């Protein structure tokens, strides 16, 4: 037997790798129940219209159709993470093209889809607002007339179609700008991006003989699914059992509800299992997408490069329902200062209802948009002052122990090391520019921070009769590998190898609460709970062993490989002996648990003023610096990222290979955001809801050389020092590419995506 090695810090293969590579992993579309029906949805053809009536008779007459539900079948129960403004289906009026207005359950999917087309809905078209500016215009039609009466989970500031307005400031901004030697100002615009999980959304619900609902769905949180379904259907939570199959990625799109409430409503109505899987177009049109931002930003510095002041104003298109929008707005303002010492910062933002699909959480959560603007301005100031852009960032980087914007204490900060590492590895400033005719080459840098944390989580570790362990958390592994990482944390804390720990699948009946696989939080937040639960188990093992060995608890210790040892002696007991003793003789089976909530305050009222901010406790900080090498075709304007160097301070890499996977994945998704991806509306209609016309990068469009650099500044209360990595590497990509385009071609792009047309137009304008 090879000697035991610590399980944390090793690139252990994913615990579910075999079932995935053999194709046997079951995703929502693979599931089936006896007697199962299939659901289909009818979508709204109008951006804004009153529903006058339904005629479902033709649909119900189709052989094989078992049930049709319309808005008339639902009472007004509303869900929403921040503002309860959304029912499971359009009730009374439709608010965007593509919104579900009716659902059908039938013997097979084809029959259901055919029948859905036969439902007749009488509409009275209403004037629509398709942009935030239209929505804010005096006398604009209201998307939600009842906004004032909706339940809100925070002290929301709202007016007209603007459903959340947030102010955040620190220092004396006006005075500071007056002291600046250089001030840059600009407006920036970012586009809607589609999440593009390879697996579209879907759900399967079954009602048992006791009237209890069992629900499987593509999700990022079985508990948020439970909460949303129960809120929007008026069910007690004890009546709903929410489970997860394997999930084919989630980037924020599967965190809050998609079609789960509709599927549950159908199953309750017909009392048979019902499954519904969205087509790619439907997934594009009715789930959610990244918020388009308009950003006005001003940054000022002294001649020596010291940043003094920043002012930011954002306007977000929120779409037809609030969803996570207030959070995205508030978080984007918290991130808008960037990871720098800027003592005077003032931010104001609004998010506005429009007659488009809802915009919501998406990897980066508003940070990538403000970084695109703010990180270009850091570069602009550096160039004006003749300071190297990377050096400029190092000079202004938040000092270790310096608080974040708003006043939150930061307990680990590897920003300077990230910047130094990418400078060294990329050969920044020392690299000879490869010159080829017709190609301009440039280098760009950007830096950012991102949180991991937010809200509650818990873990239970149980020792089985043979001394192995079951780990239960409510955290859905969405493909990123959290089951593996949590297993490593648990195994390491108990000094056993990962094959002695099994990570149970999340399930609201059997798993302890977890808010969700979101906010880069599972490794940090759930990892803390797992480490705490394992520690609890370790303590109980020692207590039992002490009883068995008839010695004080202080004399026994956990030893590598799953043994109890007596300090200062070779006497050992295998865990199996302890497990047998507790199961069959004394003490009872060992169960350890840990519950926690992230509760360090974000705002220090002595430093900062925050109004209408929905989050008051966000999380701990990871840091990132990114250098990209961009090639621009001089005649077509096409910008290609040839190489990238991304350093991320993750505290401690529990599984380095999975950390690298997250860094690479974030960069690739960030490149789509930066260069090619854009949801385009033609009036109220999404014009490109297909993977042919929506230009996500393919394998040949992304750099061969992505250098992932792991930096480890341990977070004091993180599990083994770890903090999050899920989102951060995406955030800096658009800004770094924009800065490299400037370096190569001398033009600044203010609008995403930076398509060849836009780069070329800017280059031609600059000549």
């Amino acid at each position, binding site marked *: 037997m090879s000697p035991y090695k610590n399980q944390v810090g090793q690139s252990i293969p994913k615990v579910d790798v075999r079932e995935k590579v053999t194709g046997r992993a079951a995703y929502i579309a693979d599931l089936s129940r006896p007697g199962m029906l299939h659901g289909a949805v009818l979508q709204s053809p109008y951006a804004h219209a009153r529903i006058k009536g339904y005629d479902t008779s033709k649909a119900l007459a189709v052989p094989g159709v078992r049930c049709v539900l319309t808005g008339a079948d639902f009472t007004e129960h509303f869900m929403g993470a921040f503002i309860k403004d959304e029912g499971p289906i359009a009730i009374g009026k439709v608010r965007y093209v593509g919104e579900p207005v009716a659902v059908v359950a039938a013997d097979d999917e084809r029959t259901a889809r055919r029948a859905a087309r036969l439902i007749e809905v009488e509409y009275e078209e209403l004037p629509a607002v398709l942009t935030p500016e239209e929505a804010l215009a005096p006398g604009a039609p209201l998307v939600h007339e009842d906004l004032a009466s909706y339940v809100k989970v925070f002290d929301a500031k709202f007016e007209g179609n603007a459903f959340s307005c947030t102010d955040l400031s620190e220092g004396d901004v006006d005075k500071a700008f007056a002291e600046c030697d250089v001030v840059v100002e600009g407006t920036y615009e970012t586009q809607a991006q589609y999440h593009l999980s390879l697996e579209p959304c879907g759900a399967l619900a079954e009602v048992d003989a006791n009237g209890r609902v069992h629900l499987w769905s593509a999700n990022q949180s079985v508990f948020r699914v439970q909460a949303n379904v129960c809120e929007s259907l008026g069910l007690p939570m004890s009546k709903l059992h929410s489970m997860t199959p394997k999930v084919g990625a989630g980037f924020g799109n599967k965190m809050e509800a998609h079609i789960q409430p509709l599927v549950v409503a159908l199953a309750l109505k017909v009392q048979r299992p019902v499954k519904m899987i969205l087509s790619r177009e439907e997934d594009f049109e009715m789930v959610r997408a990244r918020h388009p931002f308009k950003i006005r930003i001003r940054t000022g510095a002294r001649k020596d490069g010291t940043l003094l002041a920043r002012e930011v104003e954002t306007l977000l298109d929120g779409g037809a329902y609030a969803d996570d929008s207030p959070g995205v707005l508030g978080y984007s303002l918290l991130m808008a200062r960037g990871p720098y010492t800027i003592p005077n910062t003032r931010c104001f933002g609004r998010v506005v209802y429009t007659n488009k699909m809802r915009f919501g959480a998406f990897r980066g959560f508003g940070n990538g948009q403000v970084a695109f603007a703010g990180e270009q301005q850091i570069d602009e100031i550096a160039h004006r002052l003749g300071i190297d852009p990377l050096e400029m960032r190092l000079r202004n980087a938040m000092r270790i122990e310096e608080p974040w914007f708003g006043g939150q204490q930061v307990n680990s900060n590897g920003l300077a090391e990230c910047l130094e590492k990418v400078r060294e590895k990329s050969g920044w400033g020392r690299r000879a520019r490869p010159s080829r005719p017709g190609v301009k080459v440039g280098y760009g840098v950007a830096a950012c921070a991102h949180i991991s944390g937010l809200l509650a989580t818990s873990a239970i570790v149980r020792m089985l009769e043979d001394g192995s362990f079951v780990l239960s958390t409510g955290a859905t592994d969405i493909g990123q590998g959290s089951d593996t990482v949590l297993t490593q944390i648990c195994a390491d804390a108990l000094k056993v190898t990962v094959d002695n720990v099994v990570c149970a699948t999340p399930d609201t009946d059997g798993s302890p609460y977890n808010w969700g696989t979101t906010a880069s939080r599972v490794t940090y937040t759930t990892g803390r709970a797992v480490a705490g639960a394992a520690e609890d188990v370790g303590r109980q093992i020692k207590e039992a062993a002490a009883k068995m060995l008839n010695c004080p608890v202080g004399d026994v210790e956990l030893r590598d490989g799953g043994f109890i040892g007596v300090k200062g002696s070779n006497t050992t007991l295998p865990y199996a002996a302890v497990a047998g003793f507790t199961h069959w003789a004394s003490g009872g089976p060992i169960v350890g648990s840990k519950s926690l909530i992230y509760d360090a305050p974000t705002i220090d009222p002595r430093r900062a003023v925050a109004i209408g901010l929905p989050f008051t406790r966000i999380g701990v900080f990871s840091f990132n610096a990114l250098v990209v090498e961009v090639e621009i075709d001089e005649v077509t304007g096409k910008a290609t990222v040839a190489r990238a160097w991304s350093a991320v301070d993750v505290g401690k890499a529990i599984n380095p290979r999975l950390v690298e996977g997250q860094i690479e994945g974030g960069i690739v998704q960030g490149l789509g955001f930066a260069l090619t991806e854009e949801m385009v509306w033609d009036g109220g209609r999404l014009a490109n809801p297909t993977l042919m016309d929506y230009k996500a990068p*393919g394998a*040949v469009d992304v750099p061969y050389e992505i250098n992932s650099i792991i930096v480890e500044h341990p977070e004091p209360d993180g599990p083994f020092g770890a903090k999050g990595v899920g989102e951060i590497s995406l955030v800096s990509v658009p800004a770094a590419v924009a800065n490299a385009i400037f370096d190569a071609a001398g033009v600044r792009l203010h609008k995403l995506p930076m398509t060849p047309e836009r780069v070329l137009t800017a280059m031609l304008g600059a000549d």
Partner: protein
Amino acid sequence: MILYDFDLERPNTLEEASALLRDKGADARVLAGGTDLLPNMRVEVVRPATVVSLGAITPRDPVRETDGTVRIDALTRLATLEGSDLIRAACPMLAEAAHRVAGNQIRQMGTLGGNLCQETRCLYYNQKHDYQFKAPCYKRGGEVCYPYPNNDRDTCWSVYMSDTAPALIALGAEVEIVGPGGTRRQPVEQLFTGSGLTPHALGAGEILSAVLVPPAEPRFGWGYHKSSRRGGLEFGMAVMAVGLTLDGDGATCRGARMVIGAVREKPIRLTATEQAMTGAKLDEAKIAELAAAAAKEINPLPHHGFTKSYIRDNIKIHMRRVLSEATARARGTGTAENGGHHD
């Protein structure tokens, strides 16, 4: 998911297939690889009552006939073409064009005949119409054109996007067609009507059976480029194909075929620029002038979000590269492979 019912026929020969097509009339469609027909059936651009599958018919490998003509069965998979030693040696432009189609999985299914017989495309009608569109467009039998609402010609302005057709026209290739009256041959360019409504000039019961590529003349050179946003899984923003021959001096152009695809209802031959080229010495300055003339001669339809001027500029830029490559190949001096350009 295809929501309507249809009959499936699976004949054993092209002649049987032709007879079936003639019997079923306009409500029948041919299924070869299915990579164009099936998505179009799903979005209901076409709603055939009968699908005539050619799946039971096995194509022969491409062969060189005694006069040097390369004969390629229409059912030959695109992946077979790009990997065929014969095609790569005898007509490398066709191998290149086949390689540029979509992605590997699609090329494993898609056939050369199917690629030529593909429907025209448009950002509007190649999408499901369950609810987004209040009335059918011209192509779907209605009376509106969504991309060109002020379309005063009352017709469909969709774009024919085959990657192989421009190459075959530039190579002077012919198609063989099996029909009720037997077999006929015609130049590839005559396969197209130029109408977005009915892009192909095939009669009732007619099926493409083969493509015939003539042997290259001495001092022949080719250039090919497909502009697209991504490097793969794309239809072109513009496709450029040039075949030219040089005189014995290695500089003067004896004749040329210059074709632009993916910008109009059919591939467009730039005959004026071809004429201006013939007899000219193809130096760098002349090539730049010809590329500019080509961009001026073509009148692209703006499509899939690309503006007319951006398409024109792109053609001007890439046609220069294409002409340089063709000239170098004709001289036997350059084999600069056209790898990696995809913008």
